[in-house]
């Protein structure tokens, strides 16, 4: 009997910082998924540098063939492989680790991991050997080698298995009573991401399996139907990112400053709104397509009357308000903004969190809703405004949040100190500045009509060369230089993560006592996660005045940007 207990105990370790019991199998799977995610991130970012230096036409670095090849690789490795591998790590963390339970069927987790790695390698080999120059979207009748589609199918099957394991781990934790009450909000956010992932991956299966058969000449494929269902994968997968990112925001707020949950009902309802409505966003890509009518477009592009946007606006309030309350509970109660001024800005976990919220909300959210408006999309479809938008949602928002949480995963999961700490403190700032500036430069080029996914916008070899407004040249330079700054920040993150994980100093109790470098302040001293003092009652009266100011500034920006775009639309030719 005692042997069984001992062998069971071996499978768990107790976290020295949080006191959570961590199942070693879950921990190992977090590690391998995170490491592969970072490898894909590296491929994606190296490709990005080539793309930037090509779109900056004064440099025009890559040849036409290599440009589209790198573009395909960049899209796949960033939007699918990097981000989904990382989300698998987030799911293993939000499920078994957060609930202190065991991971059921760890072997299935390894099988899923192998399937995903094999799929990712297969697809990448096809891309880099020039057998899949079809870009990330691979719209038929453009055709890639059939191995390309099969690779993505294997990857998706693996990811689907991980989602099932996550659901099972929730069930096991409930049955074995490893926690009391309801699952924490972070886990609930993870659950939201996992459910959306299942919806997304089913779309992926519905479209990639027939497309694979089509590539083998077994069945026909309708190009419009493909666009409809493919974007059920392509856009909805961005909604996995949104849900996972918001879960990470709540997690980081708690870890860094003891950020609290304003109201469980409100935050959880907002997550449910995501599940119900956010997968309708396939329509964002089909607003000027011939296959669908306006009623369909309006209903779907608005996620059923913008109820998923409402969800984001709720999180956009509760996340900063939770941070504000956490800070006020720590004693920063003076004025409207002392909580913000005296925040731990030197902690990349915290600065990354705040910058991610700001970039995603102010830039990504506002541009997204505006571009996704049926008529405004006429001015934006397939111009550089579109990548200008999603580089501030999925990159400035999600990827930045994931990088920020890595600075806590390294000590908490890998039990190592973060390498290059002195530099890494500035990493979120450098990245945020670079990516926002790059996205703005893209957006303005798009306003001048510059197309996305284009090797030579001046069309020098065509019968009718195009002459853009001279400011476009300047914007290209800004885009490239700012983008390369962001890429340097990513490389710094990758180098630091690799050094920490493989060569890092271990995180010991002494190191924490001595406040050694490379340990984020939330790990040095974990902020209180529960409060029940007289302070709580006082805060109940004052509320969160700082956040109220911030959200109304946000709303004002939103309204102005939205109606300026309607005004711009009136200058176009009449069309209908």
């Amino acid at each position, binding site marked *: 009997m005692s042997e069984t207990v001992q062998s069971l105990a071996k499978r768990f370790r107790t976290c020295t910082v*949080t006191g959570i019991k961590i199942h070693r199998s879950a921990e190992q799977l977090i590690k391998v998924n995170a490491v592969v995610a970072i490898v894909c991130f590296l491929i994606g970012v190296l490709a990005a540098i080539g793309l930037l230096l090509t779109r900056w036409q004064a440099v025009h670095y890559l040849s036409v063939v290599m440009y589209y090849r790198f573009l395909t690789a960049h899209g796949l490795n960033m939007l699918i492989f990097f981000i989904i591998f990382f989300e698998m790590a987030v799911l293993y963390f939000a499920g078994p680790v957060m609930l202190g339970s065991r991971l059921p069927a760890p072997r299935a987790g390894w099988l899923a991991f192998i399937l995903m790695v094999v799929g990712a390698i297969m697809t990448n080999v096809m891309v880099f050997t020039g057998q899949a120059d079809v870009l990330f979207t691979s719209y038929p009748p*453009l055709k890639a080698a059939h191995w390309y589609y099969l690779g993505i199918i294997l990857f998706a099957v693996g990811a689907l298995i991980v989602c099932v394991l996550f659901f099972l781990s929730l069930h096991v934790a409930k049955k074995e009573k490893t926690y009391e009450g309801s699952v924490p909000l972070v886990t609930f956010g993870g659950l939201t991401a996992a459910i959306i992932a299942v919806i997304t991956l089913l779309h992926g299966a519905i479209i990639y399996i027939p497309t694979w058969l089509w590539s083998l000449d077994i069945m026909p494929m309708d190009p*419009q139907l493909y666009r409809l269902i493919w974007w059920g994968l392509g856009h909805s997968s961005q909604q996995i990112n949104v849900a996972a990112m918001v879960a990470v925001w*709540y997690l980081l707020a708690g870890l860094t400053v003891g950020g609290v949950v304003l109201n469980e009902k409100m935050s959880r309802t907002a997550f449910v709104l995501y599940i119900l409505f956010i997968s309708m966003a396939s329509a964002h890509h089909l607003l000027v397509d011939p296959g669908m009518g306006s009623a369909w477009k309006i209903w779907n592009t608005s996620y059923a009357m913008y109820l998923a946007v409402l969800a984001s606006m709720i999180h956009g*309030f509760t996340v900063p308000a939770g941070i504000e309350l956490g800070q006020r509970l720590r004693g920063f109660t003076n004025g409207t903004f002392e909580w913000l001024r005296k925040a731990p800005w030197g902690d990349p976990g915290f600065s990354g969190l705040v910058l991610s919220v700001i970039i995603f909300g102010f830039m990504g959210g506002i541009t997204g809703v505006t571009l996704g408006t049926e008529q405004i999309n006429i001015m934006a479809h397939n*111009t550089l405004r579109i990548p200008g938008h999603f580089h501030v949602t999925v990159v400035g928002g999600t990827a930045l949040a994931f990088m920020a949480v890595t600075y806590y995963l390294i000590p908490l999961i890998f039990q190592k100190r973060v390498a290059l700490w002195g530099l890494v403190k500035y990493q979120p700032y450098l990245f945020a500045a670079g990516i926002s500036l790059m996205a703005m430069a893209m957006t303005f080029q798009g306003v001048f009509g510059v197309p996305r996914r284009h090797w030579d916008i001046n069309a020098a070899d065509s*019968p009718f060369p195009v002459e853009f407004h001279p400011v476009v040249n300047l914007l290209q330079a800004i885009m490239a230089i700012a983008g390369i700054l962001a890429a340097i920040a990513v490389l710094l993150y990758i180098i630091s993560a690799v050094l920490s994980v493989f060569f890092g100093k271990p995180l010991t109790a002494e190191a924490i006592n001595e406040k050694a470098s490379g340990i984020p302040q939330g790990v040095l001293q974990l902020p209180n996660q529960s409060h029940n003092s007289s302070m709580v009652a006082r805060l*109940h009266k004052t509320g969160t005045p700082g956040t109220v100011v911030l959200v109304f500034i946000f709303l004002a920006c939103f309204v102005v940007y939205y109606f300026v775009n309607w005004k711009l639309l009136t200058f176009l030719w009449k*069309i209908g």
Partner: protein
Amino acid sequence: MSKEFHSALVSPTGVWWKPVHSQEKRWITISFIWCMVLFAMMPLWHFKGGQNPTGVRARVDPADFAERTERFNKEFQVGTEKGMPVVAPPPGADVYLLARMWSWSSVLKLKKDTEYMLHLSSADVNHGFSLFPINVNIQIVPGYDYGLKITPNEAGEFRIICNEFCGVGHHIMVGKVIVEE
């Protein structure tokens, strides 16, 4: 807001379905109203606005569309430019523009403040119709005829840039539209 506070890492116990603080209620109400404004704008523009992507849409055999385009070109051709037919359709005419790797079927000559029915389709893969510099962008999908009523509001020379990736020649796929007073 409740009487106790906990972070998102803590499992809430007991009943957490509690009333929302007045501050948040106000924000949610305002957000909801804003969402309704966002939603109302799109149908409203169909009645009041001049730019809508509704059009007349139908499936079409690419070969049929190519034949219609050829007939249209022959009927209204007024010249050639760089080996391409220059076509001047009469006001209100059905205008056929076929996209194919990597060119447009004609140079169009239109009149200002005149309405035309512009039919777009593709002979091969997806293409994008991007009218430069005024930035009207329409997706072209093979097998589908997208007919849009257009009314040029200024004279001048315009470009049609293909803005959907269509293979290695994508960047040379530029056409031309001339609008006369």
